């Protein structure tokens, strides 16, 4: 689904954090160009 795409991963403190999303996607061979975690409360 993300093949050949550059990925921006925005995670959430009470959900899935940015580094975790990035690790999963990079592990699957995708290119994460930016990741961050935000707190929305």
């Amino acid at each position, binding site marked *: 689904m993300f093949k050949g795409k550059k990925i921006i991963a925005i995670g959430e*403190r*009470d*959900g899935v*954090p940015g*580094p975790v999303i990035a690790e999963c996607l990079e592990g699957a061979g995708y290119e994460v160009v930016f990741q961050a*975690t*935000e*707190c*929305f409360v």
Partner: protein
Amino acid sequence: MLDSTKPVRIGIEGVSYSLTHVPDLVRFGSKPLRELRAQPALGAELAKRLRDFAAATAYAPHQVYIGNIAPEKLRDLPRPWYEKLIEGATAQGRFGDLVDQAKFYALLAGADQFNLVSFEEKWFQAQAAAHSIGRAPRFKPLSEIQNLCDKGALPLHSADQLVGAFESAHEEDASLAAEVLLENLAGKVSAAHSLRLVLDSLNLNPDDIDFVISCSEEAVGDRYNRGGGNLAKAIAEDAGCGNAAGCDVKAFCAGPMYAMVHGASLIQSGVARKVAVVAGGSLAKLGMKFESHLKNNMPVLEDVLGSFAVILSSAMPNQPCMRLDSAAFHPVRAGAAPQAMAEYLAEKPLARLGMKLTDVDRYAVELHNPEITVPSGSGDVPRTNYLTLAALAVMRGLIEKNEMTDFVRTRGMLGYAPTQGHIPSAIVYLGHALDALRSGTIRNVLFIAKGSLFLGRMTQLSDGCSFLLDRNEL
């Protein structure tokens, strides 16, 4: 961490909570201030959606906050809570009170030692003077107040009426700008108010307090010491705790949990006999989600400053106590995944006490009011946290997957705290927890709070702290 077979308990003498309703300061919250500068027309729309004090008082989550309604009753109350107001609600609660804006202005004036705030005398005498404590208020004619505001002071309103001005303390120091100092002074006076409440409710002499720990979020200091802190000592002074020293313990939203552990440790070590853990409200977070509330034709619900004060001392027989030997922190190596947080802040510390996740009768987590957060797409934060704990219980074979909803319902609760950062983070439940432990409704509560360290751009890490409460049954 303590490694002993004997429980280490620190007594919780009492806790107070207060909500300060400041509709005319919502515009100075970080988000509204920025958006209103960009789109001044939003100001009128915001003003139309502000609640009056009666509506804020009769708002069910606020009644839970000050102790008049038990959190478990909240799920039975019709929604939306901002429309289905509680009939006969009062601003006085079993744990504290709601403070109106005029009283708050009087408290600001009384706590101002640097001539930052001034009011128009006629308005002040009619509306606020009855609540004056501390220093005499500074009065200026309305023309001079207007002049100050034209030069950059923050205008203080009462509905449409300009009634005062809040000045900066230095022309070039951004850390002493009016916006920053108003945040800091609001934190100080709201915390001091809660401290006075708990001292009164326990019939304690302020001089009995040895040490005050503030876990308020404000970065008090000048440009060379931004965040230098020790708001605690200013709060102690304001509440008349003449024998107390103090310091601040900060860790984003997890600050109150750390402050409790530090306070309990001072008592356990014999360094202090009676410690107050306090926090004032976060003015920066007022109106944080106001745009979503406007879009959904709701009142702007983030119109209150939250505060609390806890008194800790040596454990007495049958008293609800904090188990210092249960205190747990989130280590650097743990990673920020929700499962890791639950393991390090719940499963592992419970295992140290010989307990499982299902041995905890109630969990206090991030108890943000979902009516505030869901419309903005931030989700139901407490529910997410409870589901993570329930999922871990399923993974460990403690419950079946189809029992997760029951786990969340019986061991959790709906959120009821305003989005004030440190205030909703578990500590908001302490008053109800003491009630439930005293009555025997529950045997224990695990308090878990998380901190978003990544917001400061110094690390990608999350953080957290937890501890168990139970009764000191001998």
